[in-house]
């Protein structure tokens, strides 16, 4: 770029010494090395993230194929057929439970304060008891049929599994090039159609059982004895309605059984919804394993919801107080105090939950003056509420710190402008500071949610670990039911499963769901902050 001097002499560096003079190591300057160090760290973290994602997806993806096999044998071996009948029998059992609940309530009403003696009350309920036992016994033939067919189906499944094991054995031998041994492994074929004949042939017998059951229940219902107490009439009516629904479902079951075809293939499209929408997580069962994430997802979600309901008012409220109201001395006290909570190892919190909080909450729930609270009193010490309270403790520091930052980022000038216009401190906080920091607060809450969803130890110890979707029919009462969570189940079961088995892969699928969930929560938190950031500050 410099014009060659007319004399074309090389420039003398001593006259204008601006050239680089640097120490070089293997051709690299010190600056290059430092740059490479930091760049390398960044690359490593990206690569590690990529590897983890890849690993999760690979392990999880195998699940879909395996679950398809799992569902195929369920159909091939006739388990699906038997489950149609079993479900009918279970529906019937639910009705008998309703009856015994009704009897208990009536008995309590009869023997209540100023009521009659126990024996007299039992005598009054004799007609009802006769009805109830008649109702229960009516399904005996059905139950008999179910257990008979269950054995047949289970036997077919067992044989199938044995054959699968043999196939696996041969595959391994072949892989080890032991051709002779491999050839020696006998793999019998199962003729499913033939095996299933006893099950199929039971259809006429089932029809008879069914017609019988319908007739007996119909007669019983027509002559339902009146309960003495009129206040139970709505419950009785409800029972009759439920029983009629139950009876009305019979033809549909028969049609399902007729149409049932063990050869109908399980499509790949069924294996995925069976996971995502499956309402049962049932493993190592003698009958059939189910891998449905819904109960775990609901559990995680409900615990997180309870936690956020507690943590958001606490965290945001404390942030507003510290940022807007507190004196410098209070700030120095409160801020480290709240941030200190996150210093507790979560296993310690979980232990505290079991030993102290669970007990205390249960004792509290049994106070008569708190009986109006949903779900109170309860007896399960470990449940959504206990876990939620502790998780709230974990979320509060995150929400508090980030919300406080967001409030701090509101330019002081805005606050001053508001005050100079004659706003009170409260008006300034509510009308200017909170709206201006809302996006930051929302993202603080989202990050708190991410923290809570991913937390493992506390839920494993305190959520009760019952794999079931809570019963929402009692309104808010569900918050005192035990649940299991996605993180909890991975921690609990991962150590015990056989590597590569369907159960192992199902756990990876759960991990994948968790990962995607956390990722999207974090992403939306960042997105919200970026999208609504104040232009000036």
């Amino acid at each position, binding site marked *: 770029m410099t014009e060659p001097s007319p004399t074309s002499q090389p420039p003398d560096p001593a006259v204008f010494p601006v050239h680089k003079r640097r120490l070089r190591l293997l051709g690299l300057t010190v600056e290059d090395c430092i740059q490479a160090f930091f760049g390398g760290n960044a690359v490593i973290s990206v690569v590690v993230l990529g590897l983890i994602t890849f690993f999760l997806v690979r392990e999880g993806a195998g699940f879909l194929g395996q679950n398809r096999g799992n569902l195929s044998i369920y159909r091939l071996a006739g388990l699906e057929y038997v489950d149609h009948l079993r479900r009918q029998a279970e529906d019937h059992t639910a009705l008998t439970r309703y009856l015994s609940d009704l009897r208990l309530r009536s008995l309590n009403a009869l023997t209540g304060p100023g009521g009659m003696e126990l024996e007299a009350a039992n005598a009054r309920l004799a007609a009802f008891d006769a009805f109830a036992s008649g109702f229960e016994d009516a399904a005996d033939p059905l139950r008999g049929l179910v257990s008979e067919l269950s054995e047949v189906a289970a036997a077919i499944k067992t044989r199938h599994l044995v054959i699968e094991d043999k196939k696996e054995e041969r595959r391994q031998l072949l892989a080890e090039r032991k051709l002779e041994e491999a050839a020696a492994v006998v793999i019998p074929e199962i003729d499913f159609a033939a095996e299933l004949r006893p099950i199929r042939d039971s259809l006429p017998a089932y029809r008879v059982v069914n017609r019988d059951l319908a007739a007996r229940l119909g007669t019983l219902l027509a002559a339902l004895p009146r309960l003495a107490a009129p206040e139970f009439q709505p419950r009785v009516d409800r029972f009759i309605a439920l029983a009629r629904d139950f009876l009305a479902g019979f033809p549909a079951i028969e049609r399902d059984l007729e149409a049932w075809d063990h050869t109908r293939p399980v499509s790949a499209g069924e294996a995925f919804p069976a996971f995502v929408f499956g309402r049962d997580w049932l493993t190592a069962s003698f009958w059939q394993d189910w891998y449905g994430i819904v109960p775990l997802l609901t559990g995680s979600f409900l615990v997180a919801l309870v936690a956020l309901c507690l943590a958001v008012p606490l965290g945001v409220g404390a942030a507003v107080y510290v940022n807007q109201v507190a*004196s*410098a001395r209070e700030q120095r006290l409160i801020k480290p105090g709240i941030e200190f909570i996150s210093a507790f190892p979560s296993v310690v919190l979980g232990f505290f939950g079991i030993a102290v909080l669970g007990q205390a909450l249960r004792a509290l729930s049994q106070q008569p003056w708190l009986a109006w609270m949903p779900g109170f009193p309860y007896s399960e010490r470990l449940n959504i509420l206990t876990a939620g309270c502790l998780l709230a403790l974990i979320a509060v520091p995150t929400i508090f710190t980030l919300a406080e930052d967001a409030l701090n980022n509101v*330019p*002081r*000038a*805005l606050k*001053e*402008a*508001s*005050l*100079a*216009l*004659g*706003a*009170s401190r409260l*008006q300034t906080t509510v*009308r*200017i500071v909170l*709206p*201006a920091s809302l996006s930051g607060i929302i993202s603080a809450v989202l990050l708190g949610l991410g923290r809570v969803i991913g937390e493992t130890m506390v839920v494993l110890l305190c959520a009760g670990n019952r794999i079931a979707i809570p019963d929402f029919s009692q309104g808010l009462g569900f918050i005192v039911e035990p649940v299991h969570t996605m993180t909890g189940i991975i921690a609990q079961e991962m150590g015990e499963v056989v590597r590569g088995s369907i159960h192992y892969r199902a756990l990876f699928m759960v991990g994948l769901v968790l990962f995607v969930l956390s990722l999207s929560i974090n992403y939306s938190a960042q997105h919200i902050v970026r999208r609504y950031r*104040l*232009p*000036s500050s």
Partner: protein
Amino acid sequence: MVNLPVRLGSPAVAAPAGVPPVAPSRPLVEIEDLDFSYGVTPALKDITLGIEPRKVTALIGPSGCGKSTLLRCLNRMNDLIEGARITAGSIRIHGVDINQRDVDVIELRKRVGMVFQKSNPFPKSIRENIAYGLRLQGLRDRARLDEIVERSLRGAALWEEVKDRLGESALGLSGGQQQRLCIARTIAVEPEIILMDEPCSALDPVATAKIEELIQELRARYSIVIVTHNMQQAARCSDQTAFFYLGRLVEHAPTRDIFTNPANPQTEAYVSGRFG
């Protein structure tokens, strides 16, 4: 960023009903023997100054001499700073000592509006920026709000530029427009005194000229106290000028006297640009 406070205005407290009108000779704001410190650091010493009604009073002096501090005393914005307090003396507006316990700062600040150095519109629409002060006072009537919004924007010479975009964010306005919006916002609540703390220091010459023009219009209705670093500006727009140095009031006189015939050699040195 250096955040220089720009304050426009002067504190005015309405005379309570029944108080006779102030005698014309008596200044609107009377600052008497005022000492002020931030914690243990004194910032103002022994200030005695009267501010006339419906006049523009300019406060000048080198950086750090306490002009902003004095301005912020007039609407008690210094209350927000921990440790900051008046250690001696008093400030009276309409004869009322504004630092008495029974004075409601909120009422005071409605009467003594303030415009800051860096324009600070709220992240709301233009209309809502103006309506904010009125809504605080509980005004809900839409028609009345619209009327005051228009009047205030006209008063701040901004109406023609923004009348078609009142619903748009105020942050989309230019710096000069934002500053005029802040003035409009201040006059919407009908103060008596407007404090301005270097209102033009972040603006280009054209926007500055507009604000100066506006100040000329506003002097008819408001008492204005303006801090400025710009000698020409002080000379152009003010009636009275007070020169401060190291926390003391050096000289206070009609602007023309300060610039043409200063009594104090320090004032002379400062206005002629020899220091500061």
